[in-house]
């Protein structure tokens, strides 16, 4: 068996009727590596996440995780293979407390009927573990509030805590700092660097390039569903294809300059 957290993607393609969202993408992630995934809107980043986490099966290609073929496995089984994720548009349990949101993800794999009764000692272990995750993302003091009452940055941190509670060896973060202020973004980057990355492989989708180059040693760029560049952050961000995909040609830049 390969070391935990290794991901191999070969020739991955996803078509939605006439639209090809992802075409022939290869990607390799080594154990413990952090990869940044960038690309303009609609370039296939979330589709790639959805394929890895089993939202839908690919039209072609293979995904293997830790040496096992997981192509087309359903989402809850993939999650139990210890692939965790967060969502660009948050998916919390709004009317459960912050504490319960994290607790729901722990032991999710065990059969529910065996979970009707949990001993006192096991419950203390569980409580400690959940509170540790909340402390890591700075939400320990809000454990008893409803998830819906948190501000956006808090909800994103809660989603991260929930994903971490399932102890994934591969973590997919979809715009973890989306909609955050610069200060909140720095805080999030720090949490990811200290608590999410050690001991696991991570793929981060993010438009905030400062944050990405701080977290990831390698970047992969998608455009129109194809991989157009891959390498160190510096090299990728100087690649002319990437500049064109991201910023448009120089002509276009001039035209759009006043708007931005």
């Amino acid at each position, binding site marked *: 068996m390969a070391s935990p957290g290794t991901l191999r993607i070969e020739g991955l393609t996803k078509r939605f009727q006439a639209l090809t969202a992802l075409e022939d993408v290869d990607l390799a992630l080594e154990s413990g590596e952090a990869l940044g995934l960038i690309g303009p809107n609609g370039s296939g980043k979330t589709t790639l996440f959805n394929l890895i*986490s089993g939202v839908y099966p690919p039209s072609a290609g293979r995904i293997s995780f830790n040496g096992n073929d997981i192509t087309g496995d359903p*989402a*809850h089984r993939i*999650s*139990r293979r210890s692939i*965790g*994720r967060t*969502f660009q548009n948050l*998916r*919390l*349990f*709004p*009317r*459960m407390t912050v504490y*319960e949101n994290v*607790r*729901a*993800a722990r*032991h*999710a*794999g*065990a*059969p*529910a*009927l065996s*979970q*009707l*009764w*949990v001993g006192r000692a096991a419950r203390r272990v569980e409580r400690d573990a959940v509170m540790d995750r909340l402390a890591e993302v700075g939400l320990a003091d809000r454990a008893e509030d409803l998830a819906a009452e948190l501000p956006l940055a808090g909800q994103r941190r809660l989603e991260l805590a*929930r994903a971490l509670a*399932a102890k994934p060896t591969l973590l997919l973060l979809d715009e973890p700092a989306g909609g955050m202020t610069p200060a909140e973004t720095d805080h999030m980057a720090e949490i990811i660097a200290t608590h999410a990355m050690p001991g696991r492989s991570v793929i981060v989708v993010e438009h905030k390039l400062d944050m990405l180059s701080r977290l990831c040693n390698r970047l992969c760029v998608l455009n129109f569903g194809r991989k157009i560049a891959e390498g160190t952050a510096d090299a990728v961000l100087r690649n002319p294809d990437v500049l064109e995909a991201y910023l448009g040609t120089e002509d276009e830049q001039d035209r759009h300059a006043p708007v931005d």
Partner: protein
Amino acid sequence: MLDFVQNLIDGLMVGSSYALLALGFTLIFGAMRRLNLSYGPSIMVGVFAGTLVHMQYSAGLIAVAAATMIGSAIATVYVERLCFAAVRSGAAVASMVSSFAVWMQIEEAVTLAFPRRTYAFPALSDAPPIYVGELFFRIEYVVMAIVAALVMLVLYAILNRTRFGLQLRAVSQNPVAARYSGINIPAVTLQAFLLAAVIGAIAGFLIAGTDQQITPRFGLWATIKGLIAMMLGGLGSIPGAILGGLLLGVVEAQSQWYLGTEYRDLMAYLVLFAFLVLRPGGLMGTVAVTQDREAARRL
């Protein structure tokens, strides 16, 4: 005034069993956002199993209650596999329509197996009523109310204190997030159906034990009571289901006393109609209905 108070007390006690039926509907609705019309008929299979055990072995109340639960659970799993698990990804209305078809199937099967139609069910109690001042309390109703209250407390503990309850609430609040948190939604759903079956069986046992007789029409009756109580309380709301059941019981008791038995059901439907027009979210209107309305507004 005395009559009113007496009816209120009777209505609340009978309403507690309606509340249990509404809770069963609500649990299934919470897990799948779908209505199981065959919920009442599944309970009816349970009470006939109870009657069978009673007739064949002159079994005591505990054994009859156990047989009711087992019968109801088996019928519920049958309905869940056929109408819900099989069309999990299909339109919600497919489940509802097929649960109606299976309802007819179950009712026919029970009618064939029990051709006399009306069968005796053992009484919950044959003790005479207790008088408190000028008010009187039928023992069956008191037992019904106490057992129903205990069931609600246990259900509360299951939903709020156990991991199963946590998973069920997670599925009902955000199925997508639940799936990516590793929760096995099909398994949690099946268990929600089983929990609903047991709660419904307890309600069926209490009601049949008060009436002391059952017919295959019990299925229709239980589905209607449970659905009305759930709609009054608010689709998908647990406290709403309880309040809706109690309200339905009181409306029935009052209209039966003041207007006559023939107006009892009519008044229940009128109250439901008034709620649907004036307060479609029910007493404890939840997100489900408001979301639908928002979606409708956007169209």
